[in-house]
């Protein structure tokens, strides 16, 4: 069963200063919706509202037909929503690629439980789909920017989500790496029939991949395509 994600009448202020007002964003089942806007317009904040890690001042977040903000177990909802953050902040933490990808399964495996062979198989398949199987034994901090981004995408895939949230997936990448990452995302989105919400400040190429594009400007959202 495929699901939608809707942000309805979202208001956010940060430090008392209004940032977002009356924002309405929707990604229908199996749709790839993009949100573009300049830096500082609240795109990352909006994505955090979408995965329930940031509470807006007003509005509703409907995910998989449930209201995220009033749900009694948001961690359970979050297990079906994979988020790929803009930057990893793990510095030199020693973790191999295979472990970092398997981490996507941790929520579904459950607390104090060990991963099973099935979980290891799902993680390997995610690495294969993102083209990083040959890097599985390497440490994440030894990889290039593009390779680290693929690790984050593989982890999101390993989570077997219904909904995929991507925060600036191609920032700091050169043109060929950017194309490679976006083709990987397109393949993931199609093969797994995901509902995807992606934010980016690079409006010029986003339209090639998205089914619809929202522009975030002056604190509100406008559907452009």
């Amino acid at each position, binding site marked *: 069963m495929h699901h939608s994600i809707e942000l309805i009448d979202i208001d956010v202020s940060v430090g008392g200063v209004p940032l977002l007002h009356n924002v309405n964003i929707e990604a229908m089942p199996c749709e790839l919706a993009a949100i573009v806007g300049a830096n500082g317009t609240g795109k990352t904040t909006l994505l955090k509202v979408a995965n329930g890690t940031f509470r807006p001042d007003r509005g509703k977040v409907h995910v998989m037909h449930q209201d995220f903000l009033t749900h009694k177990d948001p961690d359970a909802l979050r297990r079906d929503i994979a988020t790929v953050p803009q930057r*990893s902040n*793990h510095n*030199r933490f*020693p973790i191999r690629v295979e472990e970092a990808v398997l*981490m996507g399964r*941790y929520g579904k495996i459950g607390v*104090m439980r060990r991963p099973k062979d099935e979980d290891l198989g799902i993680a390997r398949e995610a690495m294969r789909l993102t083209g990083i199987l040959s890097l599985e034994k390497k440490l994440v901090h*030894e990889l*290039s*920017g593009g390779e680290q981004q693929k690790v984050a995408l593989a982890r999101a895939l390993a989570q077997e989500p219904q909904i995929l949230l991507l925060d600036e997936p191609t920032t700091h990448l050169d043109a060929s790496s950017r194309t490679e990452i976006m083709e990987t995302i397109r393949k993931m989105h199609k093969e797994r029939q995901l509902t995807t919400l992606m934010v980016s400040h690079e409006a010029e190429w986003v339209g090639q991949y998205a089914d619809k594009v929202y522009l975030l400007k002056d604190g509100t959202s406008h559907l452009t395509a």
Partner: protein
Amino acid sequence: MIGVFIISLNLVPLRFAMMHIALLGGAVGLFLKLDPMLFGLLFCTAAALALGPLSDKTKMGLGTLSGLFMTLTLALAFILFYKGQINVLQAFSILWGNILSLTLWDLVTVAATSLFIIAVVFLFFKEIQAILYDREVALSVGLPEKRLYYLIVFVLGLTIAVSMRLIGALLVDAFVLLPAIGANLVARSLKQMFLLSSLFGFVSGIGGLCLSVAVDVPASSMIILAASAIIGVCMFYGRRYHTHGKGF
């Protein structure tokens, strides 16, 4: 082993806050004419339970909150010293520790705490790995990130409190922090980090103690020098054998 938490989550200020909270606990104990060591431990345990949730409620980072507690508890302790006419040297003695004067109850406390920590790390290994790697990732894959973070902070605070009683505040760094710094430079997995930091702590402790007897210098200084030498070796090894990726 616990030093790995401090390094990975950048909780160095917490360790200093615990030292001052222990001092306040000791001051309360002396003021009430009760065991200052026990009160130091109780205050640290209570703080370890409260600091995580408090930093979230006040929206202050744990480092900032630790800074606040460091100064506030020191001020309160000195008020008690003054009002209770307490000998300051007697109060500060709870920070020195004395491994030779440990009672059976102390040993039971240390053993129980050690077993508790090992059990937590074993049972929650993958969850701890996720939190130490990236708290945002841990939250986004659906782990109960806040409760796990509070558990880590509690374990950390409890360890520092018990360690101070055993070896004193000054040596806590030598046994907890420095070995973890060395392990972080050469380990290729979290498991290796835990094992190496424990090994480095053991080697620097025993080696430093033996060297201090051989060359007739204070044991605590020699242990810290031994731990620092291990870090030096790890830096050399890490630079020689590890390649570095470009990163983001």
